[in-house]
């Protein structure tokens, strides 16, 4: 058998890069990425809501793109850059709110907060790829995850406000030209 084969019940040593840190974990091959993040690496900010890819509470960034951590085996994530909600904060200990998190609290975009990490990672992935996303495009992407508390309106508003703030802070290409 090749070295790339891992038998059931046998534990395999996985090397994962999570929030820029190299982590190693001994896990069964059937263990999902979200279970490894939460229970083997202690990163409990990522939540489990349905384990079939619909609610999005487990959404993390895999190589910068939002993905369901319940629909990936941890073994598939070897070699990828994983980013979780724990890395979104600012300041030396990550406890200061970043601009997206700030927008969520300002707009009351969370109530129980259980779905929130998934929405934050979803929005972070969206805005890094499409900083110019319109409010309707944001709504369409926000529809990827389920929230039972807010009715979504304030989540859409928070992401939209964050996007607008980022755009305002970044000079447009024409402005850059005129400055140079």
């Amino acid at each position, binding site marked *: 058998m090749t070295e790339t084969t891992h038998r059931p*019940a046998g534990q395999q040593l996985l090397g994962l890069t999570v929030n820029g840190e190299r982590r190693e974990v001994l896990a*069964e091959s*059937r*263990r999902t990425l979200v*279970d490894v993040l*939460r*229970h083997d690496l*202690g*990163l*409990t*900010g*990522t*939540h*489990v*809501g*349905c*384990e*079939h890819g*619909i*609610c999005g*509470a487990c959404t993390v960034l895999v190589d910068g793109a939002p993905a369901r951590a319940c629909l990936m085996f941890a073994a598939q994530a070897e070699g990828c850059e994983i980013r*979780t*909600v*724990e890395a*979104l*904060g600012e300041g030396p200990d*990550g*406890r200061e*709110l970043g601009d997206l*998190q700030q927008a*969520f*609290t*300002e707009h*009351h975009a*969370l*109530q*129980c*907060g*259980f*779905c*929130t*990490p998934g929405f*934050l990672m979803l929005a972070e992935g969206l805005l890094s790829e499409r900083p110019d996303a319109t409010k309707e495009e944001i*709504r*369409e992407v*926000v*529809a*990827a*995850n*389920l*929230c*039972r*508390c*807010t*009715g*979504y*309106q*304030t*989540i*859409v508003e928070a992401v939209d406000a964050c996007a607008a703030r980022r755009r305002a802070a970044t000079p447009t290409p024409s402005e850059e030209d005129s400055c140079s």
Partner: protein
Amino acid sequence: MSGRPGGTGRLVGTSVRRQEDPRLLTGRGRFTDDVHLPGMLYAHFVRSTVASGSVVSLDLSAVREVPGVVAAFDAADLGLGDITARLDRPAGEFVPTAMPVLARDRVRFAGEPLAVVVARDPYAAEDGTEAAKVVHDTRPAVTRDTQALAPGAPLVHDAAAANTLLDVTMFATEGIDSVFDRAHCVVDVETRTGRQNALPLETRGAVAAWDDRDRQLVLHTSTQVPHQVRTVAARCLGLDERAVRVLVPDMGGGFGLKCVVGREEIAVAAAALRLGRPVKWTEDRKEALTASFLAREQHYRVRAAFDAEGRMLGLDADIVCDMGAYSCYPFTAGIEPLMAAAEMPGVYRLPAYRARARAVTTNKAPSAPYRGVSRPQFVLVVERLFERAARELGLDPVEIRRRNLITEFPYTGVNNITYDPGSYRESLDLCERTLREEGWYAARDTAAAEGRHLGIGYACFSERTGYGSAAFAQRKMEVVPGFDLAEVRMDTSGALTVTSGTMSHGQSHETTMAQIAADELGLPLEKVRLHQGDTERVAYGWGTFASRSIAVGGSAVRRAAAELGRKLRHLAAARWGVPPDEVVLGPGAVRRADGTAELSHTELARIAYLATHLLPEGMEPGLTATASFDGVGDGTFSNATHGVVVELHEGTGQVEILRYVCVEDCGVAVNPQVVEGQCRGGIAQGIAGALFEEITYDAQGEPSATGFMDYKVPTALEIPDVTVRHLETPCAFTETGAKGAGEGGTIGAPAAVLNAVNDALRPTGVELNDIPVTPQTIAHALEQHS
């Protein structure tokens, strides 16, 4: 002192940022499944695959051989007491059900727990459950209320004849039959509402461990009612209640589903005691949909009598609630029918009323209270009746409501409930005016001319909140909720810890309760922390349900803070040698009213603990106070009107919500942004019930949904933006003037949406009274017409 804080603070009434948010936004919250204890094992349940039958044999020997499995227990192994919820009513009115923690000889719904498997990880635990050998003797399943009530139906519980757990006739006004006989107009409506799951995004879960030092079972669990879980756990396990400590970490929603005691949390506790190791159980989504608690499946046949001017003369209701296999603890299977019968007249004047309310038992997952409890259903029925009467009498549907709304308060209804002041009429007027001014009536006409289908619908309702023990006692529950306790404790640095018997699961109590206490004592918000969810910290509490927390719990917090405030005033007054009424609390410090002196809270706290020789004669050391509050009379009624505009699409049958306006009045809004959040979230759940979510059961008792593919929780593209407008009729007897705000959104939405759908369907002659309304139904109705 309603509405006016004892301190000079101005936090109540402002939308301050939530105290909860920083940890929840940085992934540093702690939910039940985040609790990790050394040596912890994981539980998974063997569940019945049939809806009804006897258990011929249950063999767990192969389970125990599965790699990773540590133990497996069935009912006989654990020998636990049953969970039995009772009403203090005669046998002819109510039959209790004994819900075993693990099923013994009989199973009553598909998903019922039979055994608990404990393993070194959740994967192995699930492997273990697959190795259980269960032999059932399958019996015919009872899956519909009409089937349950039919003569000769199989019995779900041998003691419950005709599968009826509750049968009461309330408020049979004398002469009601002749009212109907003589009425100018009688309309009737038959309505069925679908079975739903309240669906907190965090499923249920528990972590149990025995602590030898404290000689206590420590049970972390996601519950809205920590003390009730403690009571039941102690009873089932045969422990003193002192020997059980229930801890509730952050909660990912509850919506009522978690205000009843679950069997699994008790089984997990028993397993932990047996094994002497911590055991965790995290419900998976399939279990949450099929084996937790459901709600809302009701069947109404209601008549209403009107005079020629559209005044309602009588209401005659037959209410059947399908409560599934067992009564939930502590509310019982009476929760839905009793609520419906007691409160159905709602915001309307009504001279004659009769209601028969029944709870039937079927082979389905049991029902628990769910946000709104029956009110989304009976408001839908009453609002449909008004729409029908308007059509019969040729009246405008808003005008007929206006002629019937209660406008003079307090109003004591035919249902023996006294309604405190509200803005029933004003909210309807403002809601209608908003839609009119925005041009939706004109848009509806234009659409009709173009062959499109626009409809406008309203719902007017009130919501009883802040139930006290007197109001709950009328339900005749064996345990009577109502009051709540609060403690405030200022430490030597002048910072305040507030403890409350309520249990936030998304409602922002850490913010709103802190706003109340901070205002009372003149403290800045960041000096106040709320502590909830630890049965060691408060002698008893009733948790959070029935929109009680701000009205009742918040009042207790304010009373406790006021008590502490009196002590601070006396202490400062003694230091300055002035009378206490010349001392003002806050902002930020304790001051002489004439502005000539001030002391910080820290300095006063230092004296109270660390320099008690400076205390005035007779004053006890320390800065703590406790208080209780009980809801007054029949509680306090929030009210609202919802206005909805929909467009129905031919071909697909899609119901598109074009506009949603909610005019609400919950008295003083402690934090308006939080109130709006409650409205919007509630409305989303109400829309879900009107258009999207339902769990049906086939004839064998197999549920239709085991996941979100089939249970269609709506997304951001289905739920519209909602404009919330506030009116404020302060409550006269809560300490802050606040009324409850937790459930109203959910109550109004189904009726408003269904009325709008029917308005749009008007040219077709089709009238829909059942929810959820599916695209298929709409497409069919429009197709028939075209």
